[in-house]
């Protein structure tokens, strides 16, 4: 155990945890956040995705000690149910979910790509999303939602 300071969705948390603990476990078990989820636990599906310093990263394999002093944003940190972020609104408008368990991976990976490269081509989009899974296969709506957000953002 060691004291850890973590800034998540704009709030600073001081915790006493094993520094090797994956960030995901701290976010869900200690901070009770519901956005990032345990999908595969081996960084292959995307369900645990959070944004750290603008980059979409997989929190299930990232030791919490390595993200101290950095800003962590989870899916619930983007917007609220009353005021969703524009990309969340695009997903709401497209009805782009079934079970919805994969959404952190889908929304945050797309957001981080488009924040960095607002004019990302279709190819770049495919590349960015090629390690993100949705097992309900809501692909049609999700990709439409991402395009909708891209157009709105432009």
């Amino acid at each position, binding site marked *: 155990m060691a004291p850890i300071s973590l800034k998540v969705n704009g709030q600073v948390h001081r915790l006493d945890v*094993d520094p090797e603990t994956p960030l995901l476990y701290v976010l869900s078990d200690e901070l009770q956040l519901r956005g990032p989820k345990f999908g595969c636990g081996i960084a292959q*599906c995307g369900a645990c995705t959070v944004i750290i310093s603008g980059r979409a990263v997989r929190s299930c394999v990232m030791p919490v000690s390595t993200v101290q002093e950095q800003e962590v944003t989870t899916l619930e940190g983007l917007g609220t149910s009353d005021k969703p972020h524009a990309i*969340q609104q695009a997903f709401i408008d497209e009805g782009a979910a079934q079970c919805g368990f994969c*959404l952190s991976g889908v929304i945050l990976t797309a957001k981080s790509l488009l924040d960095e490269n607002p004019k990302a081509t279709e190819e770049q989009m495919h590349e960015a999303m090629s390690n993100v899974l949705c097992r309900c296969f*809501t*692909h049609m709506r999700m990709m439409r939602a991402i395009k909708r957000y891209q157009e709105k953002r432009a």
Partner: protein
Amino acid sequence: MKREISRRDFIKTSGALVVSFSASSLVEPFAIAQGPFDTHKSHVDPEKLDSWLAVASDGTVTAYTGKCDFGQGMYTVQTQLVAEELCVSFSSVKLIQCDTSVTPDQGTTSGSQSTPTNFNSRNLAQAAATARETLIGMAAQKLGVPADQLTIENGVVSAKRGGRVSYGELVGERHFEIKVNSSAKRRSPSDWKVLGKSIPSTDRVALMTGTFEFVHNIQVPGMVHGRVVRPPEIGATVASVDEKSVQHIPGLIKVVVRKNFVGVVAEKQWQAAQAAKDLKVDWKRGPGLPSQKDFYDYVRKQPSRDSMLVNSKDVDGKLKSATQVLKATYSHPYQAHGSIGSSCAVADVQADHATVWSPTQSVYPTQHGVSALTGLPLDSVRVIFVRGSGCYGLNAADTVSFDAALLSQAVHKPVRVQLTRHDEFISENYGSACVIEQQAGINASGTIDVWDCETWAASLGGRPGYDKPGNVLTGMLAGFDPETITPRAAVEPTGELRNGNNAVPSYVMGCISGKCGGTGSVQSERVLTHAVKSPFFTGPLRSPLRLQNTFAHECFMDEISARVKADPVAYRLQHLKETRMIDVVKAAARTANWEARPSPKDGLARTAIATGRGIACVAYEGDNGYAALVAEIEVDQASGGVQAKRFVIAHDCGPISNPDGLRNQIEGGILQGMSRALGEEITWDDRKVTSIDWRSYHSLSLGIQLPTIDIVLIDRPTTEATGAGETAITVVAAAIGNAIFDATGACVREVPFTPDRVKAALAARG
């Protein structure tokens, strides 16, 4: 955010006092057709209206259902149903789903049976209709006006000549104390105001903003964390467990061993994960596995439990006299449910009672399983459904619920168990591997005269149901036997045609003792099925056996069409007699601008990119939904890669409850079907499963080139409602296979159509 739910709290907060908890919990058939999806009598009596719904004094309605939502929109659409039948607004209905302490026992939410069960004239729909009629009757009395002069809007009954009374005033907080009236009149679809509309899923905003509560998010006071240690090889058993190997791990509470079940419990999840990784277990090796390379031959040689589904008894003679006879063998691998979220459950097992928060499709059967595993009386076990990751059938939701119960009982604390993807990939209840042999005789005029089909499906275990906890891994490890195959010869079919697995092709008459329940016109017919013992656990995976059988039937139909140089659409229509099948085939072909010509197309190029189209259709489970799908694809003949460009589907599920929700299901079903057709396959070596993660089990990612999908919805408001969650996926492998054949002339008779298999089929064209 911590929570604790007791029965008393639940009843207090649910705003309705409707259910009495009797000491006895009976499992009795309620409906005539007894099955895993039907409604059973429990302490919640489904014959009583109060078991299904209650009206509060403010007019809000609480409804109780035993069919829960796994992301397919059942929560929203059942809410629409109740609002519609009661003539109240959508927002005034609160639905309570799948909780053994308050909801009726509706068996398992699966098999595309939730809509047929709850939307036709029985169960939830009939309860709501009964309530509306009862309320109208009460209003008539109160207002002194005949019922036929009353109208209802938003839960307020008004007389045409003045006077009004609300539901809340009529019955608020009181029991109806009547039985569900089987003759209560349902509202006509032509009058629908809430049903039939694309109301957005109630979970949508919470999902997108990351606030929806999944079972993974459940936290109860005093909760600790468990992980399991699964046998590394199929059939391995525990020789010894070295508890000292994990004593260095801080926070470790206990190493739990029960027969061959091994798990660890620790204060923190990370500690439990490390303990599970480090725990030294000496496993006694299992019997080994049959070779995957020859598995389909192996399957055919096993002792089997046989069923003859149809037999016109003239098949051998007709095959001998046929002008041409075609034969082909198709095979389909084991596939995984592979939920995006590895399964999770929380259990709190105390000395005299237990509560399990479970993502199971079967709360009452799980209650029975937990009771058997813990030795607690049935009545003292409560199972509460909390949504998990999409499951598509029997993923590890049931097994992880058992894991949590066993671990919690061992430490006398609430335990949350998170399985890993590896845990789940090596031992979930896979969709069955199948071999299907087809044989058809064609007469001089090019019509099919005789169809002979023989299928083999490997099976072990399955849904635990009410009395077989050993049907999933944890139950078996803890000492309960799985259901296995008792070999038995087939007997001649009697009674109604049973085509729940679509083993009977759509093109035969399906006659038993003169009564024909099939959808086609071929008179000489024989369908013999063999169930054989599987080395792996199996269980229903979206469109179980229906998909495998339909792949074989529909691809064989194209091979026959090609032999007689007929257009695959016209040839299908020539052999179909069921109107709803004919209609979906025609609608799909029309929308796809289907060019009438035989397959494969003329002037095939033997190299480079080839394009083609294929069609497949199904009467799901014989009569539970109809679909025809046209696939347009490209085959890269150098790499063997297959790329779908466009799908056109015509879909008929009777009256449509929520068109956008239906489209979402169809789109997902088609792409999931494409992933299963092109890449998904469980693999193994001589001892263990080797498809253990998302690198070795191939699911199509969000980064693929997406096809376009055109959907034609055929609305049939006057028929019974059928299921719609599994119809689309059933026809995808067949339509893609037929399109590959059309493009290249190569028949790929084994799923998945990997580049290697496509290249081998291309090379075999001669």
